[in-house]
């Protein structure tokens, strides 16, 4: 922890960066914090408890300002950073990316390429609990699956925490705010909620890096991250992507292969 604080303090002290994004102790678990001075760096903490994906702040101009910023990134955050850069949302020169390795060793990445090499060693796997629900769902009849999701969706009150927590939901105007035409009814109701989630999942196809922030953020506990996660698992092999690793030159839906396999088109 000290190494991390020292590093952050140093970056701020010598003016390398104007701000360090990291984690501080929160009510029940660590939460995002923004250090503007070397002193504030002493608040920083880092542990497996740090689950917020800080990459979500990188596309917020009001937070980032124009100066150079450092971010303390967990593995999921690193994945998001790479995907954001693929999508032209980051300026490599304005970002110092730091991660904490085992024994609290602090690693500062020279560039995004180095990040790519680093995360390549970290496999993205569904954790037991997720796999369990997926298996349960796949075991169900279609009607049961529909009932399951409709019940889940009936709890959604459209707070869009899933969208707000996702680093890749950075549109200035989201499809749900589009009203010409009104693609998705803006009020909370099972169908409208489901339509929103289907859109979210489709928009994430080939982009989602599987950090699970959407699911963690949902105040009413809908396992929405499974939608994007499941799709990732299904599409990655199909279209030759590696789950959690950004696909350069386009994603699952903006590219194609002449020999893409399907068995349902007559």
């Amino acid at each position: 922890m000290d190494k991390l604080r020292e590093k952050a303090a140093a970056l701020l002290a010598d003016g390398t960066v104007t701000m360090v994004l990291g984690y501080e102790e929160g009510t029940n678990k660590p939460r995002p914090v923004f250090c503007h001075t070397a002193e504030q760096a002493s608040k920083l903490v880092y542990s497996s408890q740090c689950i917020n994906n800080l990459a979500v702040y990188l596309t917020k101009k009001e937070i980032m300002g124009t100066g150079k910023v450092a971010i303390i990134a967990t593995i999921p955050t690193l994945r998001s950073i790479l995907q954001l850069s693929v999508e032209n949302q980051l300026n490599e020169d304005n970002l110092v990316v730091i991660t904490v390795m085992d024994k609290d060793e602090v690693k500062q990445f020279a560039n995004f390429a180095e990040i790519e090499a680093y995360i390549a060693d970290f496999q993205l796997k569904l954790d037991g609990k997720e796999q369990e629900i997926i298996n349960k769902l796949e075991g169900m009849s279609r009607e049961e699956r529909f009932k399951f999701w409709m019940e889940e969706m009936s709890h959604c009150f459209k707070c869009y925490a899933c969208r707000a927590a996702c680093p890749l939901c950075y549109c200035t105007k989201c499809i749900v705010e589009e009203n010409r035409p009104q693609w998705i009814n803006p009020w909370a109701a099972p169908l409208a909620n489901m339509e929103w989630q289907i859109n979210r999942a489709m928009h994430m196809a080939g982009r989602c890096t599987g950090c699970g922030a959407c699911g963690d953020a949902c105040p009413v506990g809908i396992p929405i991250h499974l939608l994007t996660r499941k799709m990732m698992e299904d599409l990655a092999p199909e279209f030759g992507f590696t789950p959690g690793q950004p696909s350069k030159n386009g994603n699952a839906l903006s590219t194609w292969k002449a020999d893409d396999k399907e068995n349902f088109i007559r």
Partner: protein
Amino acid sequence: METKYISKNGLNEWFSQIVKSGKRVYAPVEERGKVEFKKVQALSEVAEEYIQTTQSIKSAVFPRAEVLFSYEKENGQVKVDDFNPDTVKETVLWKVHPCDAAGFKPLTAIFNWDYTDKLYNAHLEKTTLVTFSCAKADKSCFCTSVNGGPGNTTGSDVLLTMLPDGGAIVEILTPKGEALVQLAASAFEKDKGEDKSKYLADVPLTFDLEEVRARLATAFDSPVWKEQSERCIGCGACAFVCPTCACFDIQEDAHGSKGKRIRCWDSCGFSLFTLHTSGHNPRAVQSQRWRQRILHKFSYMPDRLSVFGCTGCGRCSRACPVDMNILEHITSISKK
């Protein structure tokens, strides 16, 4: 009004009489690892071990989405089918907490401020609140700091304080409450003179509400908003779980020549909430939206409606994906 005692069995009897009377009963139910208000038939369905439901029960009087009126156009003529108060069902809200009950006061103030809202009042009129004092609290609770308390009666029709013997002290507070009690008058016994305060949770007083209000009066341009809101990601979770947030949007559900005019929840935390057609957004950044949320609850509402917009239920703090802890933030303001 008067105070009575009800035994464990009496409680069961009363509850079943309420259900029998045909009233809809909403009570906290544990499902999917969450405790939420749900329509129930039997007391056994009601959750026991929990601090707070994730969502408040404001949806009973202010639904997430409701039809203001529907219409149909046929060769030039428009037929409007307006909202009919008689369609609203008698409803009992069972085992709400004092902080939930207290929330109905600011809601009622808002919906009767410059305009008397037919729908809201129709719902409220047919709703009876059976409140249970809190025996437990967590570190997000701060009702005592906002004129409330674990045994506070504000907004309730009946207040129950559970006793070790499974019975309860029953404070009948309104004619509505009395009427509900009458459904099973025999189930109630004479007050045993127990002091309910013994059975209440300990919720420490953390800030002086008036002090906060005083500071806020001059805090509009304070840097505190930026500092506090930096990590806010601008979702609507806090507003939607809040028992007093009443922002709404009016929407159209049109299909060809038929349609419905719908009122649905909205949140001042959303970036497009104040966006003008011109492209100008008076609250362009999250810090301004956060300021709006706090000032509205702790400054504007007391100024205009003589009631605070916060009951200390702590739901927003619990629901926030990035741990924007309102208690912590308000306390820091009061100490500045």
